[in-house]
């Protein structure tokens, strides 16, 4: 192995450690240095795709995943990265195809099973997601990621007791796991224990103030406490489950439907109905424009004064 290759391997190891600590900027920087040494290094491109995904830079992640596959189409790690990126882009069938290749080549990588389960869950195939996670736990019985993912699947399936049992196992294995606290919070929320959910959110945010899941949980808690904000949150959550194209199609579709209804109402002489529809649309636009600002301000104010209970 040349000096250059050894340097690249060290930078890849460093980036793995930084990724596991959610230090996305650090990981990205290490991988940029690795790629400066060898711009065609497939695993460095794949790792960079995953780091960029962690930093929510989907466009860059997508390009890097494609570069990884172009550099070495047979490397399971490249397929793993491609599956993760495609899953984030909600191209679920393609994501599953890459995940399957990664699983076939490297069937002992628990992280790929967890990713595969997440894809299956998004496809609405909870049974297949559960099956994949059970196989992952056979390989590594106390894998916190797999236990947390299984708790999430059980929660999505409405099996709250099973979800509680799994998330308790995950927290017993790693009491500081942010992901486990987030799922525990959602389980508490489903049970109607808003205060308990808030404590989990606060703990998770204390561990990682930028964690997406923790912020989502905290937002859900605040939404549960305010009817008007909750309405926007639910609409927004439902909308963001779709791809960006899907979101635009829904918003434009709503616009066209309301306008069509207004035109028809005017054509048949029902001017009152047309006026009401216009007002309805104006109200919807104003609400969806103002609500996010109010919601963000409310959250920001709260996040600045988070204090955990002593006995949590």
């Amino acid at each position, binding site marked *: 192995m040349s000096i250059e290759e050894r340097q690249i391997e060290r930078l890849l190891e460093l980036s793995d450690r930084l990724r596991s600590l959610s230090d996305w900027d650090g990981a990205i920087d290490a991988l*940029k240095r*690795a790629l400066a040494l060898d*711009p065609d290094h497939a695993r460095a491109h794949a790792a960079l795709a995953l780091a960029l995904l962690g930093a929510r*830079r989907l466009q860059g992640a997508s390009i890097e995943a494609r570069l990884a596959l172009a550099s070495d189409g047979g490397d399971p790690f490249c397929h793993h990265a491609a599956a993760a990126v495609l899953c984030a882009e909600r191209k679920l069938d393609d994501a599953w195809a890459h995940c399957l290749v990664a699983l076939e080549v490297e069937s002992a990588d628990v992280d790929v099973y967890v990713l595969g389960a997440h894809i299956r869950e998004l496809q609405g195939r909870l049974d297949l997601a559960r099956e994949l996670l059970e196989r992952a736990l056979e390989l590594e019985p106390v894998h916190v990621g797999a236990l947390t993912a299984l708790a999430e699947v059980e929660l999505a399936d409405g099996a709250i007791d099973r979800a509680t049992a799994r998330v308790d196992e995950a927290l017993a294995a790693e009491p500081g796991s942010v992901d486990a606290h987030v799922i525990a919070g959602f389980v508490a929320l489903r049970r109607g224990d808003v205060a308990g959910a808030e404590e989990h959110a606060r703990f998770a945010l204390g561990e990682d103030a930028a964690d997406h899941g923790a912020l989502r949980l905290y937002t859900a808690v605040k939404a549960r406490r305010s009817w008007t904000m909750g309405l926007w949150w639910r609409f927004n959550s439902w909308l963001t489950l779709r791809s960006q194209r899907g979101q635009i199609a829904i918003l434009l579709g709503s616009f066209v439907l309301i306008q069509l209804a207004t*035109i028809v109402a005017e054509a048949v002489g029902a001017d009152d109905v047309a006026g009401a529809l216009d007002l309805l649309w104006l109200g919807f636009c104003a609400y969806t424009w103002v609500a996010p600002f109010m919601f963000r301000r409310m959250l920001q104010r709260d996040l600045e004064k988070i204090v955990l209970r002593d006995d949590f």
Partner: protein
Amino acid sequence: MSYVIPDEPRPGALGHLVVRPSAPLLASMLAGAWLAWPWFVLNAIALGSPTRRKEVGLVALAAAGTVALVVLTWLLIKLGVIDSRTTASLAVLAISTWKLAMAYWVCIVQSRTFHVYEYYGGAVRSAGAVLAAGFWLRPVVLGLLDDPFLIIIVAGGL
């Protein structure tokens, strides 16, 4: 030497003019395409967006598509297909929807680069004054045109 990730913006001399891509999107609704389309292009250049060619291409497509739809509407009026207030409203709705869809599309493409730019501490200018000016100037700009088809082209998406 460092590797450059393809999504990284490279702001140039106009970097101080960067605004959130939602500002030109809002301008397309409140002021009109006359403000929104050039603003999207300016923002792409100011950001040093790696996808600026795509963004400029999409703006060109939006303009060309709007002109094509307006010409089609004119032809349909000449042929007598559009012969009532209702059918005319439907034609205008089709054009508005096209313009809105394209504005959303450009905004989404530009937002990807903008988020990276903002994440790494890039300065973002407030767009409130330009939006307010655009809103108040709207009747003045549209008043300069006496052809209803030209007004439909440069007017807002809503």
